[in-house]
């Protein structure tokens, strides 16, 4: 059995980092950073850069980050053209410097999409995602009005499938990686999570129509089935959620078209 305790080495890096103030045009700044331990995370490397800037009396680079364990979805950087960097299936905070070479030039940019305007440097405004959820990404249940939990049996495969979709951390890498700036992977994940559960049936059609409408209004692009979103999703959510979103949307529109009121059906199947 081969056992490794990853060896501690350091890297000297050249960094091209995006600098921008809100509402103004931005540009890259170049900085050299030495002695970056390979065990450090990418954000720890950014911390080191910022500490170096403070020593020089310069403003630091603002970037979003919080949990630093890959679950809150707050960190967001395009690293060498790839949202969350070169390693598939991880967030920027879980990307470690051992994946880079000594002497390498690393380009660090914010998420690039019209729906995600830059707030400062590498931090962007992702409130479009929240708006999508606010329009229908929920199951209406008032506090205290829930039935006994085991009265709603959920077959294990359905629960697992819902969980696969629900793993989405809402980071926005799907939008940033999409060459159309489309949010279909995010919206698909959210809709799938709720639409396949028995609890979600009552609002299924209404939810789907409302969330797609809000998504379109928020300025995201259209899906043209590139598949970049899946390839960059730190939770490896698949295009299946988009296919199912399409199906649910079509179903809801057809039902709406033929319904006597012209409104989304309230019932499930």
């Amino acid at each position, binding site marked *: 059995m081969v056992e490794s305790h990853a060896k501690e080495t350091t890297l000297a890096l050249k960094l091209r980092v995006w600098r921008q103030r809100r509402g103004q045009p931005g540009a890259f700044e170049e900085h050299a950073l030495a002695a970056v331990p390979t065990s450090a995370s990418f954000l720890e490397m950014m911390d080191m850069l910022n500490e170096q800037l403070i020593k020089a009396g310069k403003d630091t680079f603002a970037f979003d980050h919080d949990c630093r364990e890959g679950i809150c979805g707050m960190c967001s950087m395009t690293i060498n053209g790839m949202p969350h960097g070169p390693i598939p299936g991880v967030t920027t905070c879980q990307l470690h410097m051992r994946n880079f070479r000594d002497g390498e030039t690393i380009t660090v940019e914010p998420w690039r999409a019209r729906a995600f305007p830059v707030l400062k440097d590498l931090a962007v405004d992702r409130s479009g995602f929240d708006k999508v959820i606010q329009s229908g990404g929920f199951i209406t249940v008032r506090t205290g009005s829930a039935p006994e939990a085991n009265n709603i049996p959920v077959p294990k495969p359905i629960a697992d499938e819902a969980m696969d979709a629900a793993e989405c951390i809402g980071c926005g890498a799907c939008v940033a990686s999409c060459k159309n700036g489309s949010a279909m992977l995010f919206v698909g994940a959210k809709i799938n999570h709720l639409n396949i559960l028995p609890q979600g049936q009552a609002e299924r059609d209404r939810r789907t129509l409302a969330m797609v409408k809000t998504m379109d209004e928020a300025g995201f*692009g259209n899906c043209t089935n590139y598949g970049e979103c899946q390839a960059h999703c730190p939770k490896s959510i698949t295009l299946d959620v988009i296919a199912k979103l399409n199906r649910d949307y079509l179903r809801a529109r057809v039902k709406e078209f033929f319904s006597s009121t012209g409104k989304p059906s309230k019932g499930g199947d």
Partner: protein
Amino acid sequence: MSASSCSSCCQPSSIGKKVVMALTGLILAGFVLGHMSGNLLMFKGAPAINEYAKWLHDHAGLLWAARVVLILSVIAHIWVGIQLTLENRAARAGGPADEATRRATVASRTMPYSGVVILAFVVFHLLHYTFRTVALDGAVYGDDVYKMVVAGFSCRSVSIFYIISMLLLCLHLSHGVSSVFQTLGLRNERWRSRLDFVALAYGWIIALGFISIPLAVLTGCLK
């Protein structure tokens, strides 16, 4: 139907637009298969293809019905395609300075371009063999479609343009046909690679079927 859903029909949602692309694309993909099959009658000899052409013209109602459907499909496919392309460019806000691509295929990334070339080809093709106003040196062929086609493809540059266009059609179909399934919600992880293969195979069948004719003319197999 309520006012809101009416306006949403006229201003389709992002998914609505994709469905228009998928359904019109499906019609056009079906059409090229039919067209290609008809063309292969060239290999059965002049009487076969000429009879087929005559049969089509004798059923003008059917022919025009098909033409109307095709023309509407083409217009919708192009119109919505342009909308999607422009909207998507705008939504991207320039994209990263240093863009990387992980899995988007060449076919998927060149759909607007392959589409434009195919459109140019279609226009030329209609002028060539339907209106018979270009590249036929003013010769009149009447009902002898076989003769016209052989004469048309005897021109090397026409044939090369035709062949290139058909290869681009193959590329367009390889992404488009598989995307139809995705857009209509009929694709999943397990079936994706199979459908991608089917789409690619379909594209090649169509392209090779079409290409076989100018190639046969150029090599002297069809005279």
